[in-house]
């Protein structure tokens, strides 16, 4: 049995072991390595309780035996291998199931409240424990997207976008549980499919399904035209940049100060959704060809696909980066599955969440450790995931 010289390290202060090379069997798998680390930690600290670890060899998760992995990655077995270990991400645990009257089109959650938009022309506010707090009714058509704008004490501002070509700005007082429509934003010549709120919470960017993007507070501040087909998703990268994905196979990045287009990323299929992570500065896009692609929005040539995550069997309708983790993202698809990904393990998702019985339309994370997904089975599922390892 061949042996491999390996040095283990971690960034987690709780689980540090001595920085000495070990000789380990080449055929050892994740569980074997995890046992080794646990033994070492026990020797160091008698009160250590067993923890499952995952191992990274040169930034890639170890999924097979060590020798196979090194052979496929082309890593020499002659030298000492640096193996990083992290605490294994435990499977997200389903917590609540919130029943709606109709399909759920969108979800936005913050630390306390969950906002959902539904095909029954209403938006609903739920507590994170799954208790309905408020139903926001006012649209004359399907609510396609919802967003929290800001919260000041008990008063929150929220936005709902609908197929009736309007975006409504609501003020909601959680104590009195009253909701009041503050503004009605018109200007789209088509249904409004997606909205996005500036990180600072003062400007709203809203999107519509036809060719033009509008950015507005009460009346549109700016119209971003360029897409030749429906815009499916829009978001703020930072306070100066807006990113939009469209059915015309492009992702465009706009400068909000000038209203001009900065970069165009061209794909080959319709984009359904995008998400941007400020932690790793990557764009993730879900498209109709079942792939999740990662993009670098700063590239100038505009067509670089960094990584493609393939496991879904239907259109990818929702994708969201983890708010506190640089490598994790969650995706929802028409094949009824929600998948949790780690970009360091691009061959297969970390976990499949098969709670939904019908198409998944929206996913979201909260920083408090909740993952949410809603879809055509009228249910909004929440999952508790291990959010403590904010190593990035």
């Amino acid at each position: 049995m061949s042996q491999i010289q390996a040095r283990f390290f971690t960034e987690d202060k709780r689980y540090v072991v001595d920085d000495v090379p070990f000789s380990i069997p080449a055929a050892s798998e994740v569980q074997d390595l995890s046992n080794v680390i646990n033994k070492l930690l026990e020797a160091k600290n008698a009160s250590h309780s067993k923890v499952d670890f995952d191992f990274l060899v040169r930034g890639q998760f170890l999924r097979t035996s060590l020798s196979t992995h090194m052979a496929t990655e082309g890593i020499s077995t002659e030298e000492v291998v640096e193996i990083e270990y992290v605490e294994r991400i435990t499977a997200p645990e389903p917590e609540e199931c919130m029943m709606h009257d109709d399909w759920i089109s969108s979800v936005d959650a913050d630390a306390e409240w969950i906002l959902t938009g539904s095909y029954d022309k209403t938006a609903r506010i739920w507590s994170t424990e799954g208790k309905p707090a408020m139903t926001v009714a006012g649209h004359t058509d399907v609510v396609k997207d919802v967003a929290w704008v800001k919260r000041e004490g008990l008063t929150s501002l929220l936005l709902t976008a609908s197929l009736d070509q309007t975006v409504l700005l609501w003020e909601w007082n959680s104590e009195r549980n009253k909701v009041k429509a503050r503004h009605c934003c018109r200007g789209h010549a088509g249904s409004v499919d997606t909205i996005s709120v500036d990180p600072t919470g003062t400007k709203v960017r809203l999107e519509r399904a036809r060719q033009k993007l509008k950015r507005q507070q009460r009346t549109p501040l700016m119209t971003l035209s360029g897409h030749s087909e429906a815009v499916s998703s829009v978001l703020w990268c930072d306070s100066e940049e807006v990113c939009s994905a469209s059915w015309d196979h492009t992702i465009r990045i706009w400068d909000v100060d000038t209203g001009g287009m900065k970069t165009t990323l061209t794909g080959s299929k319709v984009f359904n959704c995008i998400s941007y992570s400020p932690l790793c500065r990557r764009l993730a896009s879900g498209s109709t060809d079942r792939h999740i692609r990662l993009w670098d929005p700063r590239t100038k040539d505009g067509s670089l696909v960094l990584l493609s995550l393939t496991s879904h069997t239907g259109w990818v309708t929702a994708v969201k980066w983890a708010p506190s983790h640089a490598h994790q993202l969650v995706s929802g698809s028409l094949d009824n599955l929600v998948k949790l990904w780690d970009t360091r393990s691009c061959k297969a998702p970390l976990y499949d969440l098969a709670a939904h019985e019908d198409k998944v339309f929206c996913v979201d994370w909260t920083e408090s450790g909740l993952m949410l997904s809603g879809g055509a089975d009228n249910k909004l599922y929440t999952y508790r995931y291990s959010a403590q390892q904010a190593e990035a």
Partner: protein
Amino acid sequence: MERALQQIFNFNRKPADEDKDDDLSDSEDSVYSGLEDSGSDSEEEEGSDDDEEEGSDDNDDKMKEKKEGEVSEEKKKHEYEHDSSDEEDIRNTVGNIPMEWYKDFPHIGYNLDGKKIYKPIRNKDELDDFLDKMENPEYWRTVHDKQTGSDVVLSDDQVELVNRLQRGQFGDVNFNECEPMVEFFSSDVMIHPVTNRPADKRSFIPSLTEKEKVSKLVHAIKMGWIKPRRVEDDGRGRYYNLWASEDSSILARHKMHLPAPKIPLPGHHESYNPPPEYLFTDEERALWEQQDPADRKLPFVPRKYSSLRQVPAFSQFIHERFERCLDLYLCPRQRKMRVNVNPEDLIPQLPKPKDLQPFPTTRSLVYRGHSGLVRSISVSPSGQWLASGSDDGSVRFWEVCSSRCMKTVQVGGAVKSVAWNPNPSVCLLAVALDSVVLILSPSLADKQVILSSERLLSAQQEGEEPAEGNGSVVWSEAEGEELNQGLRLKIQHPKAVHQVVWHAKGDYLASVMPDNTSHLQVYIHQLSRRRSQNPFSRNKGLVQCISFHPIRPYFFVATQRSIRIYNLVKQEMTKKLQTNSKWISSMAVHPGGDHVICGSYDCKLSWFDLDLSTKPYKMLRHHKKAVRGVAYHRLYPLFASASDDGSVIVCHGTVYNDLLQNPLIVPVKVLRGHVMTHDLGVLDVTFHPTQPWVFSSGADATICLFT
């Protein structure tokens, strides 16, 4: 002969010449002493033979005889005795001269001693000769010796010898001419070699003289004195193809000649005494008699006869020969030319489907909600909405990207056809059911668009009252509850409407009422003026479907077997396309307007290039069952056909602006997703206006989106 004569001549002197015997004995001694002695002996004899003709020859013969004599001495001895007899002749030494030279002399020559030989006294004249002839019984054997001038009477032996020689026999009676030959060389390998001499040394070493010769030749060649022989070119002139000028067709015919097949040899059945198993049993015979003569395995009944004598004449002989002749001349015999063609080579060079992307490949969404078979679907020009009409009496509107049914309109009848107004600035849907065409305003668009479409519908109202040119079509407004559902207009037709299509501008729509007996099969309605007209005054057959040209004022009408193209401005027929199919089911016009595809109930899809011909440019027979619907994509070079076999076949069809280049048609994908219901599969197919996606509606009450 001469020698024999000499012997004859000498015989009679033999007794007189005994004195020579010593010489003979000497010569015999010399035989024993060696060849040299016999040579000297022969010289001596030569001298004595001088008077004879060809004495030397004689001598040689004797030498040979002496050599042979070494083998049998006894015989030789005897021979020499004979020889010695003519040695002691009184020789005339004058030699071989004409004897008339001595005519005037008393002597005739000289003997060995130089004395004159005198002529015998010849006084015989003719008379004496005659008397002698008459009286002398020895006359016939008397010969005249010229050399001595005397007459000699031949003895009996001599006469016998002459007779033998005249008969061509050997002179010696005792000579056996048929003695067995002893072969010197034979095929038998003897134990002793012919010669046992060891090989010479010179046969082992290279010859110096030859070397010298060769070196001389080489030097001469080098110096150019000798030219090496040029290699002769045999290819030209010496040989030629004797049959080159012959007609190749004759040769080919000869080559193709096939001998007539042989009649099979008779078997046991035909025997006059066949083994019992070949004879018919009663059942077999009955069966044989029942069968048609053409079906019989044997053309006769095997029979058994006790002997060949009793076999009667073959009654079928003439018939059999006749059949044989018929076989020979009615059945042409020819060699089958097997062409060795690789089947791969026959397939035209088509690009791989992979290179022709994008095209729909997988079923992405299923739109469920209808309870009856979905006959017709249509996508809004924006690509956001999908309308479907079903046999359950409802028209549904779907959001394309989520498969959400946004709206259901109950129209109260099986919907035959739905068509979305292609003009993006109005949002209207035409629905055909029973004998009504409904105009729906689904209000699934921008408010401005909805307003403009309402305006279009109501424009007529302020003007003059609806006046129909022909009273058969009635326009009426929807009222009450129907208005809330989105119904705006009803166009009542005299007969059941099967199809409704819009003109590209969105103001005109045409409807089909198939009816074999009437010329009122097609109506063209103008929405803004609420006017209907029947463009055709004559019945050209059962109209199946119609279509407007996307750009030019042409109108396509498909009847059962052909497609007619009318110019609406000039009001005349410009072209008639022959489809070669039995019953057209559907038709689609390329967005460029120069190509038409046409599906038929006999499983065929025909592509027409209007610039090329009125015959199909290509016939695609990929479907197993009737083709129900065909569609072109508005932007991508794609077309699709839907069939009762439950599949949608997507083909790539690139059209070139270059008139010389034919369209490139490649089938790229078979899409399956519908469940067969009541033997019906897919009923309608349509493309998304902007994406390479195809929608299909099936008899299983679902609509599928393939992307």
